[in-house]
């Protein structure tokens, strides 16, 4: 179906203040959406309470309202403007909640304003853990055993039935706030109280914890004709138990066979199709048992999410931009791939590089805060790196954290012995990846670390590769350093400064001069959505060594 021409003006709801758990990703999606709709000649009206955003720049929309995100503001805007439709999927859960509230009060209907790109019943089902569980059971999708509780007493009763470890998840909250793990009976009361208080509806889900299972996220797009594509598959390096926003993640998935991946793809599509009838973006999360490859659904978000922004940058596929076009009636096969401009937007990006995302925490600014990672997101930002190998991308990401890390080398911090390190890494904290590397450097085996952390061995083998290279490098001086080794180090993401510190008695400049003299210099590669199969017209570039 081509574009719905009855839509001449659209209201976009922003995500409000930047808080932990919901940051500037939604500014990115809101801006893309505004641009995408204006391209079609549609008048865009935008509301956001946060003026420190790109989307509220006067040039982004035809009219910008800097107003509190509440129903009164919405009504004011609808009185002052003729608005045909509202697109509430670009502003995260905040925008969706506001849209829903206005819907319950009959505001949209009163002003004859359609909801596009969303299905209110779908939001309800996705956010209400019990409704979600029932839907999964109906479509034959496995989920972790769980019960909904509205009181501490009920919660305790269900905890008895399900058994520990448990997860307490409050309904309708942002970034998992108020949720947590319960490993034993003594922690239960406090966790239930906290969860019930955090939930606006005084409701929590008491769920069996699948700690240690591998975690995956799929980003999907669907159009009115029910065509669905998977834009990106993201694998969490950290297993289940850590909020995705606080996990180190990688794309494409590194440890999935085709049989396991296709099962995930089929189930993600089934889940999206079973959830209402909206066209736009959707995010589905799965947990996979590493022993049996058994799969369970963790959650589904029927909107553009934090991960969509990452997936867009990771693949080059502009999810929010295309989702906006789908919301106004286009089908995927009627749109072009924005990067190649010649091939179809109905396709699944192929990557010939590795993306690693590492969260950035600021615990030094929150003195006394608990720095153990869990269900509630604690990071304040993230870095994304691109490389031609996992090791390169990981080290580039760590280098970009601006916390004195030089690649995976983090100097002057770890004074722990290997036995202490093994204990330390059992609890996920912000510096775990660096301590894993320390442990490997001290000769702790991959097997022991895999057991302590639940991290898939493949990632640890790769970190081991970095350690082996570091050990090799430490045997040389700048004069004796062999060309092959220097090249290998650069390909695996070692920075010049990092190399100079490993070799000692040598400066960053010396390393730079040496590799320049040897012709070991950066090359630039494209993020083109298609693994070089087609010529790209508007790609972006990353640097690497080949």
């Amino acid at each position: 179906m081509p574009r719905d021409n009855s839509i001449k003006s659209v209201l976009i709801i922003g995500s409000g203040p930047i808080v932990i758990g919901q940051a500037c990703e939604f500014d990115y999606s809101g801006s893309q959406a505004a641009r995408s709709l204006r391209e079609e000649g549609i008048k865009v009206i935008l509301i956001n309470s946060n003026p420190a955003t790109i989307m509220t720049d006067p040039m982004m929309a035809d009219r910008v309202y800097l107003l509190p995100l509440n129903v009164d503001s919405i009504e004011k805007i609808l009185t002052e403007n003729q608005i045909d439709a509202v697109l509430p999927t670009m502003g995260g859960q905040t925008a969706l909640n506001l849209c829903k509230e206005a819907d319950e009060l009959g505001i949209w209907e009163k002003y004859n304003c359609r909801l596009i790109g969303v299905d209110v019943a779908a939001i309800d089902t996705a956010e209400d853990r019990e409704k979600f569980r029932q839907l999964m059971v109906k479509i034959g999708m496995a989920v972790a055993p769980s019960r909904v509780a509205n009181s501490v007493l009920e919660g305790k009763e269900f905890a008895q039935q399900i058994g520990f470890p448990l997860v307490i998840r409050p309904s309708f909250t942002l970034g998992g706030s108020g949720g947590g793990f319960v490993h034993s009976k003594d922690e239960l009361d406090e966790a239930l109280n906290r969860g019930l208080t955090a939930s606006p509806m005084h409701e929590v889900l008491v769920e069996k914890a699948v700690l240690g299972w591998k975690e995956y996220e799929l980003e999907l797009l669907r159009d009115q004709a029910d065509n669905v594509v998977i834009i990106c598959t993201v694998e969490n390096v950290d297993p289940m138990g850590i909020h995705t926003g606080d996990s180190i993640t990688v794309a494409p998935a590194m440890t999935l066979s085709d049989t396991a991946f296709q099962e995930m793809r089929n189930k993600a599509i089934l889940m999206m199709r079973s959830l209402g009838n909206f066209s736009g973006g959707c995010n589905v999360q799965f947990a996979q048992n590493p022993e049996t490859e058994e799969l369970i659904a963790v959650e589904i978000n029927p909107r553009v999410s934090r991960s969509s922004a990452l997936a867009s940058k990771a693949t080059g596929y502009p999810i929010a931009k295309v989702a906006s076009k789908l919301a106004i009636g286009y089908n995927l096969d009627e749109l072009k791939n924005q990067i190649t401009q010649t091939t179809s937007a109905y396709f699944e990006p192929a990557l010939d590089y590795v993306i690693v995302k590492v969260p950035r925490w600021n615990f030094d600014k929150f003195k006394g805060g608990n720095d153990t990672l869990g269900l509630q997101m604690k990071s304040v930002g993230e870095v994304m790196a691109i490389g031609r190998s996992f090791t390169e991308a990981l080290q580039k990401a760590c280098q970009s954290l601006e916390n004195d890390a030089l690649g995976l080398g983090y100097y002057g911090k770890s004074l722990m012995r290997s036995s202490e390190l093994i204990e330390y890494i059992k609890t996920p904290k912000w510096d775990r990846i660096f301590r894993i590397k320390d442990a490997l450097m001290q000769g702790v085996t991959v097997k022991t670390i895999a057991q302590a952390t639940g991290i898939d061995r493949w990632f640890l083998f790769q970190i081991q590769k970095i350690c082996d290279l570091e050990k090799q490098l430490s045997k040389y001086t700048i004069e004796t350093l062999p060309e092959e080794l220097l090249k290998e180090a650069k390909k695996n993401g070692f920075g010049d400064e990092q190399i100079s510190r490993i070799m000692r008695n040598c400066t960053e400049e010396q390393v730079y001069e040496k590799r320049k003299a040897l012709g070991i210099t950066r090359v630039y590669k494209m993020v083109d959505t298609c693994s070089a199969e087609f010529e790209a017209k508007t790609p972006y570039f990353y640097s690497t060594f080949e």
Partner: protein
Amino acid sequence: MNKQATAILLLADGTTYYGKAFGKTGTTTGEICFNTGMTGYQEVFTDPSYYGQIVIMNNVHVGNYGVKESDVESATVKIQGLIGRNLEELYSRKQAKGSLDEYLKQNNIVSIEDVDTRALVAHVRTKGAMNCIISSEILEVEQLKQELAKVPSMDGLELASRVSTQEAYEQGDKSSPIKIAVIDYGVKQNILTCMTSRGAHVKVFPATATLSDMKSFNPNGYFISNGPGDPAAMDYAVDTLKEILQEDKPVFGICLGHQLLALANDIPTYKMHHGHRGLNHPVKNIITGLCEITTQNHGFGVDPEAVKSNSNIEITHINLNDDSIEGIRMKDKPAFSVQYHPESFPGPHDSRYLFDDFIGMMK
């Protein structure tokens, strides 16, 4: 760190890449092609349609989850050689039986890694498919050039009979009322599985089987398989197919089978510039209007103009990227075919309905 031996990749146009040896130490030749899929390497390596080809895997890490006995499309590795950026010796998968390196060694596959595969793919995309040689024993480029000159061009090469079964064999429930005769030009195991799992009893015949051989099985329908090589060099197969069509029984062709159905209708085929190989090719079913993400692996295509001007042929599927013909059916016979791989192993399962359609025609 193990010091890996050096290996060289030389293309017919003289382009040379130095990398590290992986798999078997030795020399191998074939036609270079690339595959953009991000999962399913073992299925790709064992796909008989890749016979005679050296495959570049665009995905930068290959071998991560090892190898597993059931993740195969035939009993042995069919590619001639493998080119990768990072081919992994160490793997992680509980169900895996071994590493990629051991597997390639056992199957005598010479491979090269640490190659700038992106630059190489862009080169093949621009210059087109050509022959190449990988060696980890001959490190003299001049000598490699001489070896490479001996390799015949894929254009006009008949390869199907080399990968076809020598003896007929059966799969599925023998008491099933639905019997399908499969002509094996390099059939993928999952095509057979897609039919037997839908209740069919299949008998797989050698490429050279005659219609009367197949009729003795009393089939309700015929399946024309995928396979390697140039369809235009397969007159014997086209003749057999013409005879089959006279039977007025359901006929389904995949990939090479699609090209043969075109040839049987006097539609010529051609060698593509660099082919379609991957798991993300967009196809539109123009009968239903719905789209499907497909697995593809072909270096030859059917002439679109000849298809359009043939009054007895209806186009059922088109490629959304380049408008090439992805599916056809005959108006006067119960025969249809697709250029892509609905059995998709590896790949998305969007197109499995075609097997339901085929079985449905025989009920």
